[in-house]
């Protein structure tokens, strides 16, 4: 008897451990998201603080109309230097470049070396600063990564051709984050020359000891020519800091969203476990009632127990979250940019939120089961009925139906209103309502689903049939278990459908619009544009009959800064057939603009109207020549002829070359690639490669989403294990009877496995169906998605994975069922 008791206790412990585990994982995900975002924020802050601290004041030009700051004359340095209180002034120049090693380009920053500790955040760790034009200092981590040492020769490219340099020194950033900042530093004239900048971007100012910064600012401002301003070091980097912090915030919020899904799924599991374990104690609780315990006392006792589990799990979750933060960082590094953190930040806010979430979920999940069981009649202690839970309540069904109607209404109301904020909110709320509805309706749906999906189990004989019957036996329990998986897979399939539709849209667009054969663009490493001269080289190839070049710049309508594309319409129309709503691309003439149809609508403009545009180079009263509707060309397209006046710094970023009729794009791409081989950082792709790349980019995001949802899947699988092991325990006697009348251990395993796989499949298929429908609706209502595609093969794969997860989840419970002591089971009272 003692052994039975111990075994029960062990089983209970294990069950609580499994329950706790689903809380732990959810809390860990929440913690990990916060910790990673906080750590990134702290690292970024540290870098910016160090950078800001290097300057007492900064002189820079006033922000231009499109948000950029024009360069200004180098002579200004001398003027600044002459002002009273200024001890030192250093010009600064910075631009994107590439370090070339064995033909591979690594994107880096190119800047001028400031040999003054008071004005630079970088200091030499080895060697010396550059004095000759062909000398550079590299940041230490960059050199290390590329296997370069002082004395080595390197090739660098800025805005012009590749030049050769000698590494004369290595530098480190004052905080230990220099791997975030791969730089090559040159002499000022060389930096100006290689970046093709005739001036400076800013001047760092160090003040003499005891000089009041405000007074110095005033003095400087008085001396400086118009168009320049003086700010302190912090203000100088505020915009950059904000931009980086925004990116970090977006990442942090995205992670949190996934954490919320994980917590939500976990809450189903926790709810389920409490429902079952409390119900199993019904007789014992009835006995307590019989000896005088009030319902409220019993409820409080059960909730207290649950909260203890919740507290322990939350604390463990917070600790696990610290580890998970590292894992998440690695994961994101794997799929995208590396995000080095220099410290780990566990803030009080993180701990509080995580524990509140963990305890809150536990409390919410335990309340209903505790209330239900605490109402047990004292006489139930004397009755033998195991207190089988009532059939799924009609109340749940009603709530589910109402939610479904509301959700469907919201999704319908959202309609295809392009980009409207309310539309997005309606879609989000509608989707949530639908998923919630499915969760409420699950107890009603599950018996039907188990009958339909379980039909093939007939062929597995008695074990299959029993497995199927068992899923229909406790619809609520099966439903809660399956619902966990359902939610996970609904999110997965929304992502899958959306991504497939996005890919298909891209492919279709490129297929139908791209008339040329080869696309030339900057490769992803750090280049903002194509090097000067590439276009001539491409055009010079005898196999090329047409080249279209698109340069990118920016414009503002006085409120919002938008991307600006410039093309030669005739040449471009030969290689790219942009859809037009009114007019033709070739209607574009100098002084005119091709305007996006939607934007024209918003601005109330039609063909022939005038749009005042502010560009980096000046104003343009642009005549609207045609209305277009194309993602690649974007909002506004002007004529290349206007470019020198409007933005002399605009760089070509996209070129399409076409050969004569019947050209093999792959062959042309190969010859063009050879033509521009000496230009580093230029990507030459034929149409297929280009499309494949676009699709791969979507896939990369999708895979990251899948990876982040994997944890949710794990929680759902834990839920299945939990439910199954509880079922095995509850059905000890029944399984014993089956074994007594001849069910072999292997068949018993098969029975549990059938139950497990069926639960998984019910959850998976409900989730897939739900997610697919939502995915289709959302894709339909997303303006940029033109073709909605359902990735059947992928969805099928998910179903297969879910079935496999069911098999795996059954391993342990099935073993218990097979190893059950038959004699004890059938003779137990």
């Amino acid at each position, binding site marked *: 008897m003692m052994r039975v008791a111990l075994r029960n206790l062990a089983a209970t412990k294990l069950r609580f451990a499994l329950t706790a585990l689903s809380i732990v994982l959810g809390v860990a995900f929440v913690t990990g998201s916060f910790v990673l975002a906080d750590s990134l924020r702290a690292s970024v802050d540290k870098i910016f603080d160090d950078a800001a601290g290097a300057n007492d004041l900064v002189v820079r030009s006033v922000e231009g109309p499109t948000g950029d700051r024009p360069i200004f004359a180098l002579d200004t340095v001398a003027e600044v230097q002459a002002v009273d209180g200024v001890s030192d002034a250093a010009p600064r120049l910075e631009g994107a470049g590439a370090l070339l090693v064995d033909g591979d380009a690594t994107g880096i920053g190119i800047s001028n070396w400031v040999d003054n500790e008071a004005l630079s955040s970088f200091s030499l760790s080895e060697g010396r600063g550059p004095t000759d034009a062909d000398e550079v200092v590299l940041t230490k981590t960059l050199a290390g990564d590329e296997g370069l040492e002082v004395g080595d020769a390197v090739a660098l490219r800025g805005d012009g051709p590749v030049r050769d340099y000698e590494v004369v020194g290595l530098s480190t950033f004052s905080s230990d984050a220099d791997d975030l900042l791969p730089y090559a530093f040159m002499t000022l004239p060389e930096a100006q020359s290689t970046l093709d900048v005739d001036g400076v971007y800013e001047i760092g100012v160090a003040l003499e000891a005891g000089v009041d910064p405000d007074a110095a600012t005033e003095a400087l401002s008085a001396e400086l020519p118009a168009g320049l301003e003086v700010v302190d070091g912090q203000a100088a980097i505020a915009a950059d800091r904000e931009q980086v912090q925004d990116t970090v915030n977006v990442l942090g919020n995205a992670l949190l969203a996934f954490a919320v899904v994980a917590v939500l799924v976990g809450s189903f599991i926790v709810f389920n476990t409490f429902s079952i374990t409390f119900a199993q104690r019904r007789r014992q609780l009835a006995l307590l009632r019989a000896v005088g315990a009030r319902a409220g006392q019993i409820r409080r006792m059960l909730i207290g127990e649950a909260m203890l589990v919740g507290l322990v799990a939350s604390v463990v979750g917070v600790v696990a979250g610290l580890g998970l933060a590292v894992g998440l960082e690695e994961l994101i590094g794997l799929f995208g940019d590396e995000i080095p953190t220099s410290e780990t930040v566990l803030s009080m806010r993180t701990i509080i939120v995580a524990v509140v979430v963990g305890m809150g979920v536990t409390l919410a999940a335990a309340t209903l089961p505790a209330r239900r069981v605490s109402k047990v009649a004292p006489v139930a202690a004397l009755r033998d009925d195991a207190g089988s839970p009532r059939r799924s309540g009609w109340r749940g069904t009603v709530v589910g139906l109402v939610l479904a109607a509301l959700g469907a209404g919201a999704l319908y109301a959202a309609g295809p209103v392009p980009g409207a904020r309310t539309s997005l909110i309606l879609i989000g709320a509608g989707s949530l309502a639908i998923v919630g509805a499915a969760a409420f309706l699950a107890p009603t749906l599950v018996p039907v689903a188990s009958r339909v999906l379980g039909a093939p189990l007939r062929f597995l*004989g*008695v074990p299959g*049939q*029993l497995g199927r*019957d*068992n899923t*229909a*036996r406790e619809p609520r329990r099966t439903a809660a278990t399956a619902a966990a998986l359902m939610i996970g897979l609904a999110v997965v399939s929304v992502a899958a459908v959306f991504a497939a539709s996005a890919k298909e849209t891209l492919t279709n667009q490129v297929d139908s619009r791209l008339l040329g054969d080869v696309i030339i663009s900057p490769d992803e490493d750090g280049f903002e544009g194509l090097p000067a001269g590439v276009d001539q080289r491409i055009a010079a190839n005898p196999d090329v009959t047409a080249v279209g070049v698109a340069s990118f710049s920016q414009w503002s309508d006085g409120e919002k800064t938008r991307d600006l594309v410039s093309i030669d319409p005739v040449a471009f129309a030969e290689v790219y057939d942009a859809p037009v709503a009114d007019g033709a691309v070739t209607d574009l003439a100098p002084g005119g603009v091709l305007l996006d149809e939607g934007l024209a609508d918003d601005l109330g403009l039609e063909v022939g109207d005038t749009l005042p545009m502010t560009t980096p180079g000046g104003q343009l009263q642009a005549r609207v020549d045609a209305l277009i509707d194309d993602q690649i060309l974007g909002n506004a397209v002007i004529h290349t002829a206007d470019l020198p006046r409007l933005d002399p710094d605009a760089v070509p970023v996209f070129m399409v070359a076409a050969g004569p009729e019947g050209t093999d794009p792959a062959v042309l791409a190969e010859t063009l690639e050879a033509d521009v081989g000496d230009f580093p950082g230029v990507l030459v792709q034929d149409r297929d490669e280009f499309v494949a790349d676009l699709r791969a980019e979507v896939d990369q995001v999708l895979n990251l989403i899948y990876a982040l949802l994997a944890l949710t899947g794990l929680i759902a699988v834990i839920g299945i294990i939990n439910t199954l092991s509880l079922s095995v325990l509850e059905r000890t*006697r*029944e399984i014993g*009877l*089956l*074994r*007594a*009348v*001849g*069910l*072999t*251990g292997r*068949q018993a395993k098969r029975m549990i496995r059938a139950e497990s796989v069926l639960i998984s499949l019910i959850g998976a298929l409900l989730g897939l169906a739900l997610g697919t429908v939502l995915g289709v609706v959302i894709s339909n209502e997303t303006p940029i998605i033109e073709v909605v595609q359902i990735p059947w093969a992928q969805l099928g794969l998910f179903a297969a994975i879910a079935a496999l997860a069911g098999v795996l989840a059954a391993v342990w419970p099935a073993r218990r069922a097979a190893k059950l002591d*038959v*004699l004890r089971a*059938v*003779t137990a009272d």
Partner: protein
Amino acid sequence: MSTLEAPEAERATRVAARARGATKIYGGGAGEVRALDGVDVDFEAGRFTAIMGPSGSGKSTLMHCLAGLDVLTEGEAWLGDIELTGLSERERTKVRRDRVGFVFQAFNLIPTLTARENVELPSRIARRRPDKQWTREVVGALGLADRMSHRPTELSGGQQQRVAVARALATRPEAIFADEPTGALDSRSGAALLDFLRRAVREMEQTVVMVTHDPNAASYADRVVFLGDGRIDGEIVGPTAEAVLDRMKTIGGPA
């Protein structure tokens, strides 16, 4: 009826289950319990045998060991021509499935299955087609014909036990082992069940071994074997309730 009844001599020639020097020891050292202590006994085919004895005398243990549910510590347990002691768990499971019928005191049926599915369970576990005609005969004799599509919760206790008997009979096992099958029934349902067990033996040539406390129940049997302290303690052939009761009094009162 009498044509169905084989002559006594012919019915009792074969042994359906047999124990030789059967010893079962639970635990070890000081806490050792000899549940069976060198039991030699034969249960003839085509006979209804009752096992009686005080509580803890080893009745259930003997039955479990002969039915392949448990293994002897020493000695031999034969079911027909199969010696069970050396068999693996897997082989014993097959023996139970194909050659043994069980009726427990309670909880004999799988709640998710209908009565018919429960009856056909052993053959369906073996993936064999149930013998429909035989099943119909058994079910008819048990008066269950119109109850076969019901689930256990829709049946009375007596009906449930009769379904269990039908299941035990369905595979025409070597022997049916029933451990206090009437223990949880009212006396009328109990009598009906016992009556049927006797008919199964007399008219359908089945073999029944039944553990019971109840002298009245034992009187339905052809023979009663008495156990005491894990040993055979005599037997009565052709028992009456009074004879059994008298006998029980001499070995320490009804169990």
